[in-house]
Each structure stands twice: as C-alpha cells, then as structure tokens.
C-alpha cells in the first residue's frame, strides 16, 4: 500500500470544498496551521491500493506574499512537498482560475487540474477541447462536478498516475518575454554562485521569478548581499524599459499565455448577456434598498431559527429533565450520593444546559450555509461594508457578529472568512458583546422582576442596543490602538448565483455544528465538573445544618463551599457596583456558562426550582435590590467574562492564550468600570 499526500488548491468559489468532500467523504479532520489563524483541513481516502492524504489549502487567487492565506498555501507546497497538487478550476471563468495554475507550475510540483462545475459551463454554452488544453498546459485535466460527486474516480486515477510518474514528466514553463527572461538568467546565475540550501530547496528559477517580483517573503530569505544587488539592478532596469513594475508585467505575461491557450481551446457560443443575476444584484446591492433587504433577510433567518428551533429545544430540555429524574429515581439510595449529585447537577445540568441550544445553532448554520452557497453572502458583505468600514472592519465582519446573537462559539469560528488578521482579531474580541441566547435567560428573570410591563420590551431592546454600541466603540478603539492598521480596500468577487444543493448545505452545516458539539461539549463538561466540586465542597460540619430545611441546608452548604467563599471574598469589590455576595457567587458560576447564573441565584435564595416558583424568586430579588441594581446586573452579565466555551474557542481560533485572556479580562474590566459609573451616577439621580 503506497501512501501519498495531495494538496488541493483553487480560487475561492471554485467549488474546491465540494471536490475535497467528494474525495474524502466523511473522513476529515479540521485543525490549525501552527501559529496562524487559518484552518487546516485534512482528509483521507483509499483508492486502488494507494492511501491518499488530502490537504485542503485556503482558497486563493494567487500565491503572492501579500496575504496570510496565500503564504500558507505556498508554504505548504514548498515545505511539505505534497506528491501532487490538484488545482480546482471553475470552468466558467477558466482564464482567471488558470492564473493560480501557472503559479503552481512554477513550483515544480506535479499538478492535476480538476475542471470543476463543467455542467454549468456547458449550460452557458462553452465548449472545451480538453485534450488540446491539456497538451498546451502540459497537465492532466479531469472534468468534475464537485457538488454532485461526478468525476471522483477519474480524478483519483489521474492523481495516482501523476504521482506514479515520479516527476519524470515535463512541467510546463511560462516564458516572460526576452527582457524579463534575460534578467531572470542574470539572477539565476547570481543564485548559482551562492550555493546555499535556500537555492537547492526552492529551485533557481522560482526564486529568481519571486525576487524580480520583489516578493517580500522570498527576499527576506536571501542573505547574500551580492544577489540582492543583482536583483535590484534588474528590477530597476526592467522598470525603465517596460514602464511598469516587473511584478505587474509578469502577471500580464502569465495571462497572455493563458489567453493564448484558451483561445485555441474554448468555443463560446453564447455571448455573456446581461442576465438575471445582474438584475438581482442591482436590487440587492442598491444604495437605498440593499441594507433593508439584508436586515429583513437576517430577521427572517433569526426568527425561523428560534421559532423552528424551539421545538427540538423543548424536546431536549424534556429529555435532559427526564434523564436527571431517571437517575435520581433509580439511584440506589445512600450509596455515593455525591456521584449522583455530580451526574445530575454537575454534568447534566451543565452540559445539558448548553446542548439544549444545539438545534438553534444547527439551524442558524444551515441558514448561513444556504446564503453562502447561493452566492448572496458576497452581496451582503458589500452592503454592510459601508458601515463596517467606518468602524475599521471589513464588510464580512458583520456575519460572525450576527451569529454572535445566537452564540459566541460558532460566531468566533465563523471569523475564518475574514482574510485580514487584525480585522479578524478585532471581530473576535467584540463578538461576546452581541448578547447571546444564554444571556436571554438572565434577562427573562430580571426584567419582569424589576420593571413594569410596558417598560419590559424597551428594557430588553436597550440592553441589546448597549451591547451593539459598545461593540462598535470597542472595535473602533481596538482598530485605533492594539490592532492598528489599514483596512484592505474592498475588492471582492461576486460569484454567480447558484441553487444550493441539499448535500452541499448539509455538509457545510455539519462541519461547523460538529465542532460546536465537540468543543463546547468537552470544555463545558470539564468545567461543569470542576464547578460542581467548587460548589459542593468543602461541606459545612453537620451541626451547622441541624434543624434547617432542605433548602436552607443547601444555601448554607453553598456559603461554605469554595464558590461561596470566593463570592463572599469579592463582595467588597462588587459593592461599589451595587452587588452583594449573592450576586457575586452567581456570577462565578456563570463563568462556566451564562445559563447557570439563574440556577445559581435560585440555589442561593434557597428556592428549589427557580422556574416553577419564579415569581417567588423575582419577589425576593425585588425585595433585595433596586431596579438600578437589577439593570446593572444584567449589563454586567452582558459585558463581562465571556463563558468558558467562548474563551476556549477564542484560544483555538487565535492559537494563543494571550488573546483569549485579553478578551476575558478586557471585557470584564470594561464591565467593571462601566457598571461602576452607571451605578454611582445612577444612584445620585434615582
């Protein structure tokens, strides 16, 4: 059994993901490229006695040093040296897609072209002479339709045959015209004299090409002054005689080669008309209509998500409830009571509380996958860009922030669509300010407790609004200080509108959903267990509990435990905010998951089941605190301490504990200062 590694490259929107899925089926694994924020997808398959490992490279238009994604793709091909690179090209805009192919060719690695979306191209009236094209490019071409699973066997066959040929086949070389070729020769000669391992590893011609393009990454690898001087002179000379940067002229020559090859092999029987796609765009990106249409769509998405999601949510809640009851009833009494409590209160209470949101999350992901696969998302990003740009973010940043209204965990995952690292970090930092579904349980308890009916709706809106405004301000501040830098000018391809396939949507939904379950589940499980211990130990001595009712006993136990003591200890810190030890203790619990805040308060006030006797809990709260304090508590929960799952996801996506802690303490600090101000000033007025 032979093993090979195959890298998958291609333009964004070329259907690379579908081809990857088609090749690897369910056997995929998503991880992180070390040190960077872009996901690394690997998958496996076995074909005819070969074990093939596929690595899905980020979608790129080129392999320059100008963006992290391109560098990653390039580094993988150069450093990890896959046996074959499959370039997935979109047959309906072949010329642009082949640009990447020319870059891969120059890296001296065997390549196969997956001629994807060939069904669409045919429908547009394009006819291809693939044999001729294959000969001109000196590369094997396999027609595929990724999202229908067509072409899989042929592609795998081509990959194997190419790998087997062991680089004996000639790889095509793009020539750049006399002037540039002369300079390339000069640089290659200079490189030849240097004889360093850089030269052996990357090859003289490729290095020379990159050096003439003034590629920053490659230039930084060359130590030899002599070589750099030769390059400098060549570049200056070319600038003179060509009247433009060598980099641009070379790009032009590549397109010239591509154009020539395509002219001989493509027949276009239908002139591209102003089609329905353009009409839709005119409406959807209209200066006046664009934003309302977008907001309307978002409203529909959220409404449906929570409406349809509420049914499975209720089932899950009932399921976990009966599971807890079942364990309680069938547990042999008196035996290892602590284990039963751990299972029921700790594990099921903690993990169950989070998993209950799974249907919502999946539905939200499905809606987003639909919008993405249909091509609308690119238009939406443009519409939002006008606003986002003012904050210093890219239009696409709006999408993860919107997801954050459901849950921060998938929202942070969604920031992968942002290409600019600083953009991405800023967005990740402020996502927790988009009030998530979990916090809603807190508002549902507090608002009716402190505010009369006609104030309740506005209060809820106010809290959400404060979150959004704070998010905007914080993003702006971050972009001016910590994450200072230019915003990328907005240049984006608008893919043609496509009918999303059920298969495609489900795959995209599951990719995100599974990660949510796994990450949130493992982290929440661990923390719930830890929290359970902290809430139940140390136990007060038996005499302290004598004569008390079960509820009072629980309250006393809590006071005595680690969590309770910490709550008491931080009380002095919290008093300037109008809080006391009870709120402090509940807040500690809510760090695990915001939903726990309510149940914690219930225990503290010695109310057995907060939901059934909610009026009672609300009355107790009203008796203890003023509406100002109630408001402050809600705001504090909104802004401070994102839940452990969020912190864990931030750490995963940024690959650094530093940013995760910055987010955690930054937000908590912000909350503290803000609530302090609000409370102290509010006290003077009210």
């Amino acid at each position: 059994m032979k093993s090979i590694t195959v890298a998958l490259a291609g333009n964004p929107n070329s259907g690379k993901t579908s081809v990857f899925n088609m090749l690897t089926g369910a056997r995929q694994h998503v991880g992180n490229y070390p040190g960077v924020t872009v996901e690394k997808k690997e998958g496996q398959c076995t074909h005819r006695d070969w074990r093939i490992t596929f690595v899905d490279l980020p979608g790129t238009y080129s392999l320059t040093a100008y963006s992290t994604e391109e560098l990653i793709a390039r580094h993988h091909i150069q450093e990890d040296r896959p046996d074959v690179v499959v370039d997935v090209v979109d047959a309906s805009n072949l010329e642009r897609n082949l640009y990447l192919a020319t870059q891969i060719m120059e890296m001296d690695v065997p390549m196969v072209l997956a001629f994807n979306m060939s069904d669409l191209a045919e429908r547009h009236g394009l006819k291809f002479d693939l044999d001729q094209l294959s000969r001109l490019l000196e590369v094997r071409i396999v027609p595929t339709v990724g999202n229908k699973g067509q072409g899989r066997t042929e592609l795998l066959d081509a990959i194997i045959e190419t790998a087997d040929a062991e680089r004996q086949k000639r790889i095509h070389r793009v020539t750049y015209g006399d002037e540039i070729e002369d300079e390339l020769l000069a640089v290659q000669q200079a490189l030849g004299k240097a004889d360093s391992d850089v030269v052996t590893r990357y090859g003289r011609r490729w290095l020379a090409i990159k050096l003439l393009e003034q590629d920053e990454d490659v230039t930084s690898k060359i130590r030899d002054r002599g070589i750099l001087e030769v390059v400098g002179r060549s570049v200056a000379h070319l600038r003179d005689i060509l009247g433009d940067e060598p980099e641009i002229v070379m790009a032009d020559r590549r397109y010239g080669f591509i154009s020539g090859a395509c002219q001989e092999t493509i027949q276009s029987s239908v002139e591209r008309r102003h089609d329905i796609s353009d009409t839709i765009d005119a409406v959807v990106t209209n200066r006046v209509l664009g934003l309302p249409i977008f907001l309307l769509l978002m409203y529909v998405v959220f409404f449906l998500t929570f409406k349809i999601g509420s049914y499975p949510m209720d089932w899950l809640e009932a399921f976990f409830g009966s599971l807890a009851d079942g364990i309680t009833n069938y547990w042999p009494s008196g035996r290892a009571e602590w284990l039963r409590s751990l299972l029921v209160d700790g594990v099921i209470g903690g993990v169950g509380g989070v998993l209950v949101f799974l249907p919502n999350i999946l539905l939200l992901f499905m809606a987003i996958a639909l919008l993405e696969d249909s091509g609308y998302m690119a238009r939406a990003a443009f519409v939002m860009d006008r606003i986002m740009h003012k904050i210093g973010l890219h239009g696409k940043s709006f999408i993860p922030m919107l997801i954050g209204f459901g849950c921060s965990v998938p929202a942070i995952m969604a920031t992968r669509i942002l290409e600019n690292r600083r953009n991405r970090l800023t967005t990740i930092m402020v996502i927790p300010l988009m009030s998530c579904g979990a916090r809603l349980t807190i508002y549902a308890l507090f608002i009716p407790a402190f505010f009369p009916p006609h104030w309740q709706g506005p209060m809820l809106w106010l809290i959400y609004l404060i979150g959004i405004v704070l998010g905007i301000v914080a993003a702006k501040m971050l972009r001016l200080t910590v994450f200072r830098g230019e915003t990328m000018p907005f240049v984006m391809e608008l893919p043609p509108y496509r009918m999303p396939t059920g298969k495609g949507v489900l795959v995209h939904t599951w990719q995100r959903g599974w990660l949510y379950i796994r990450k949130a589940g493992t982290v929440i499980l661990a923390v719930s267990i830890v929290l359970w211990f902290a809430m139940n130990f140390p136990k007060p001595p038996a005499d302290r509990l004598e004569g008390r009712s079960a509820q009072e006993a629980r309250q006393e136990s809590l006071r005595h435990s680690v969590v309770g003591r910490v709550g008491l200890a931080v009380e002095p810190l919290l008093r300037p905010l109008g809080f006391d030890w009870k709120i402090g203790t509940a807040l500690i619990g809510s760090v695990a998951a915001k939903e726990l805040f309510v149940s914690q308060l219930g225990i503290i006030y010695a109310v057995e089941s907060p939901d059934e006797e909610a009026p009672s809990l609300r009355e107790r709260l009203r008796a203890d605190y003023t509406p100002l304090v109630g408001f402050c508590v809600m705001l504090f929960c909104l802004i401070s301490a994102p839940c452990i799952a969020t912190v864990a996801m931030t750490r995963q996506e940024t690959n650094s504990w530093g940013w995760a802690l910055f987010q955690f303490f930054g937000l908590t600090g912000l909350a503290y200062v803000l609530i302090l101000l609000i409370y102290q000033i509010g006290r003077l007025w009210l």
Partner: protein
Amino acid sequence: MSQSIGVKERQIRPLSTAKAGERVRLVRIDAGRGLNSRLASMGLVPSAELRVVSNGHPGPFVLIVKEAKVVLGRGVAQKILVN
C-alpha cells in the same frame, strides 16, 4: 495633435468615470503594490478588457473581468486607469 475623422483619440481616465455597459481596456493601476497585485491576480492587468456592469450612484461599482464579476469598494475604481 491631429485628429482624423472617424478616429477618436482615447484618453486615459479613471475607471470610475466609465458608464454602465461600457467596455474599456486597463492601462495601469495607481495603487500600492498590495492592491495592485491583488487586482492583477484577479485579471486586472495592463490591456485587460473590462466591462462595467454598474457604476455606483446608487450601488456598488461592479465590473466583469476574465468572465467573473468583481465588486470594487470606495476609491478603488478611481485608482484604475483605463482607456
């Protein structure tokens, strides 16, 4: 500076001045290397044929290059010189 009848001397102007439906040819891009390179890799190289789909007012600047639709944000269209 002679002008023969029937031959219009085509001026070099920013892409932002082109109207919807117009076909133009790219001359050069007056921008930093990053943006320049990005645009080049998407097909905006000297002598590339561009077709304007829509030119803002209201709405975005959308053009077709190499059979693909690309939308440009603030100020980018002004940096692209065509004739």
